[in-house]
């Protein structure tokens, strides 16, 4: 009896603590104020922002004027993003920039403290842009590791007709981000979403997209769609695991799995089409292409997952540049 009386509270305490930790990780960050001092911002690779900076006044692009590369940047913090900024004289004149959307939402992202938008940043784009330039005849920007993160309400977003959004399960867009992303897509921009799992995250993604493109349904993309054979022939949808699960699978651990729980066993490729039946948004659900790019050179991460993820990525980019 005394033993039970000491064990039960211990187990309960551990369970509650784990639950709190999990909630802290899973719940989206709704804070709108400036980041408190002592925030858990871990050292991270320098972030480079290209092109003109935005001011707090909003649109900074001079009508009809030339784009200014290398202009000083202004820190934004009105929506709680701890977004270190720096000058980035990204060389102009490339045909393709791997542009990562920096959105409002969940902070943390495995301890990086910058926000879930920065998951796999910057290694994922470093490896992916290298492979893209090597395998396909695209004039791809690879300077500064190919980094090109940009805020969703930054007018310069419209300069880059392809954008990559990672972990949208933690996305919580502001009104200006919704408006910016909507005009971007309606003007002809293409968005690739990746790395969100399970029922809860999917519900959040659907909610956010409904804000951006109200009235446009999210539908499954059939395997005979042009995006699955724009460069490589993709005849099945595979679930690409995150790096930890991938290593476990490669090592042959018993119980190793590729999903991340919450009914995320089945991968889906969905999309949103415009009025002319052109794909505007591709949504890679229950899969983690970014990790496969990031860990492509890791000897413990299965090569076939990286290969598949690279093929999907290349097909998506080539499709986005021609449709």
């Amino acid at each position, binding site marked *: 009896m005394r033993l039970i009386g000491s064990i039960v509270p211990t187990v309960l305490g551990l369970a509650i603590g784990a639950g709190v930790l999990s909630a802290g990780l899973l719940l989206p960050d709704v804070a709108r104020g400036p980041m408190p001092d002592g925030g858990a911002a871990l050292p991270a690779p320098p972030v480079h922002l290209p092109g003109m900076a935005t001011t707090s006044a909003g649109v900074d*692009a001079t009508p009809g004027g*030339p784009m200014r590369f290398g202009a000083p940047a202004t820190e934004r913090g009105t929506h709680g993003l701890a977004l270190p900024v720096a000058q980035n004289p990204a060389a*102009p004149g490339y045909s393709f920039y791997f542009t990562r959307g920096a959105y409002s939402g969940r902070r943390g992202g495995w301890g990086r403290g910058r926000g879930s938008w920065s998951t796999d940043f910057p290694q994922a784009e470093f490896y992916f842009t290298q492979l893209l330039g090597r395998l396909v*005849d695209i004039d791809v920007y690879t300077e500064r590791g190919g980094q090109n993160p940009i805020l969703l309400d930054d007018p310069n977003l419209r300069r880059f007709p392809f954008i990559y959004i990672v972990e949208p399960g933690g996305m919580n867009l502001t009104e200006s981000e919704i408006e910016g992303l909507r005009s971007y897509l309606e*003007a002809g921009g293409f968005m690739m979403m990746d790395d969100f799992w399970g029922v809860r995250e999917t519900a959040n993604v659907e909610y956010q997209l409904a804000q951006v493109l109200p009235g446009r349904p999210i539908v499954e993309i059939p395997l005979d769609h042009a995006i699955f054979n724009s460069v490589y022939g993709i005849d099945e949808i595979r679930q690409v695991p995150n790096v930890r699960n991938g290593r476990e699978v490669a090592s042959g651990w018993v119980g190793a799995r590729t999903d991340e729980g919450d009914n995320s066993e089945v991968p889906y490729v969905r999309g949103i089409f415009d009025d002319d039946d052109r794909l505007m948004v591709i949504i890679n659900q229950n899969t983690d292409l970014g990790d496969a790019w990031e860990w492509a050179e890791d000897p413990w991460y299965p090569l076939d997952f990286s290969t598949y993820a690279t093929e999907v990525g290349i097909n998506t980019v080539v499709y986005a*540049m021609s*449709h």
Partner: protein
Amino acid sequence: MFEFLFKYRPVLFREGDFTFLTPWPVGAIMAAGLVLAAVAVLTYRGTGRKATKMDRGVLSTLRIAALLVLLFALLQPTLVLDSVVEQRNFVGVLLDDSRSMTLPADDDGTRADFVRSSFGSESSALVDDLGERFSLRYFRFGSDVSRVESADGLDFDATRTDITSALDRAREGLSSVPVSGLVVVSDGATNAGAAVEEALVPLQAASIPVYTVGLGPETLQPDIQIDRVELPRAVLRGSDIVVDVPVTQRGYAGQTVTMIVEDGPRRLAEIPVELEGDGEAVLARARFTLDETGPRTVRFRIPPVEGEAVARNNTRELLLEVREDREKILYFEGEPRFEVKFLRRAVWDDENLQVVVLQRTADNKYLRLDVDGPDELPTGFPRSREELFRYRAVILGSVEASLFTPDQLDMLADFVSVRGGGLLLLGGRAAFAEGGFQGTALEAVMPVLLETPAVDPRAAFTQMSVRPTPAGRAHPVSNIGEAILPPEAEPREDLDLDDPWSTLPYLSTMNRIVETKPGATTLLSGLTPNGEERVALASHRYGRGKAIAFPVEDSWQWQMHATVAVEDQRHERFWQQLLRWLVEDVAQPVRVTPQRERVEPGETVPLVAEVLDSAYLEVNAANVVASVTSPSGLVTEQPLAWTIEEDGVYRGSVDLAEPGVHTVEVRAAQGESELGVSSAFVQVGPSDEEYFDASRRTASLRRLAEVTGGRFYTPETVDQLPEDLQFTGAGVTLREERDLWDMPIILILLLGLIGAEWGYRRFRGLV
């Protein structure tokens, strides 16, 4: 005055030869003259000491001059003329029977009134005078020529004036009789047939002078006229058409009138036209779209202003074909670029354009889009002319020259020059000089000059603001203003609808193009941030086709830039206009051209057909047949025959009687295989051509007369015609001598010189 002084009219002195008929030897005359001159000088030596040397000199001069005049008269000066023998020669009188003769003359009345009164069956002084000396033969002319008895047979209803044919027919008709000359009575407003100069040589060879009587005022005023208008022969449905319509006027300088453009009952445009100085042409720019297919008659008219001398020259009608074809364009891109995406999207809804994309994604790996089937472009860029020439136009993106074989480069050049296709060259890191095209067959096709290629294209990267040039503003590609906002959108103050180019974002280029080739036209120019002017869009004709350079690599900025509204359609409009222009007038394997697009009922229409095979090489001895469908549906067939002198050219003619638009369809076949079909249209109906430029063409008529040895007259001076005709020297003539010793000028000079000598002596006190 001349005739008073010299007894005869100048024409006699011009036509005749001057001579002295004295029987005395010249030496004796000279000696007598010297003796008289010496006597005259010596007599002044005795005038006393009062006369100075100057006095003696003046007096001597006056007396010697008087003696010379007397001597001149005593030498029997004579004018020798070849005068026609009365009633032994013929004169052809050519009377203009066209509608322009119903227009006002210089005085009250019309030009036709003068013709009727002077050359009608009722007696007139002119005809009587002519009839005494010559046998007259009358001809009437308009678009054809025929003999008439007098001006009574004229109805002044001919819709064209062909003076050249009239002169030829009259000359040939009178070739068997002695002809003293031809008299042309006309306003000289020829508008049909060959140039008048072509009739001059045969007339000069036959020594037949032409005497022209010009009718009507030299300027019609007050009057407004729409001058000649040019329209493309065929356009795609929905294409923007831009036409500069020249308008001239007299008497309405500074006023503003309205020009209306119509397609049947449908009003296409209304353009205010501010008239400039008298006789100066002002260009009225009309922009419109034709949405109904088939032959369309476009009418340009300015409602007559009160008091206009001629109202029927305020309207021009032109026929053009509006086609519903789907033109196929091959877009070959060397690498994935966003330009592909946005170009396709821009013309996505254009049902008349099909852009087939062949995009290289990796070595020997291509992405094909919008192909008609799996058999299209299976091995990449076409390797044969037949395969390439199926397309109406080719767009080359950022593709280096080394990707093509030399034969493919030659093929591309032939695609433009031989096939007549359109070629559009886009900018990019592997385009133009940066793509290694110097020295290739394609460089010759380009409308721009290639600079030394940049070692690092990215270092040559720059941006430029793009604006239309003056030539570009008159071109459909620059007509993007209406596309800024859809009609239902709210107005925006930040957009200048009158200058839609001023708010477009900068574009990027890695190809430094600053100069075009001679004969090329720059439609858009670019200005870089450091002030350098670049060529942004230029074109020229090359052989049968056209080549266009657009050294820009990201026109999609006009769609995606943050300053461009989502509903803005300028990017779409620009590309639709550009590609429609690219395929405009591209040759087909079979092409029929009526030599006249508007004729009178019953007139003959010559047809010319060009027949080519699938490689666009001329085909001789093919079976070519023209089927003509009248407005009522009646179909007649007419074979066309190979000309033999010209490869692939076939000729024939059809007579069209029924008013309305006739469809001419030509089919060509060689053996069992059909080579192609071509259609054209001819409008049959009365023409108002006679009312345009209907003032008297004095210069033309005067030149016709002077070159052939005749003279030009007006109604006021035409009474001199009979006498002038008498001394043409043409026909049966006899030699006539006319004395000149009794010219009044001689008596006046003699009396004047003697009087001057006496007066000088009185003045000097030497008397």
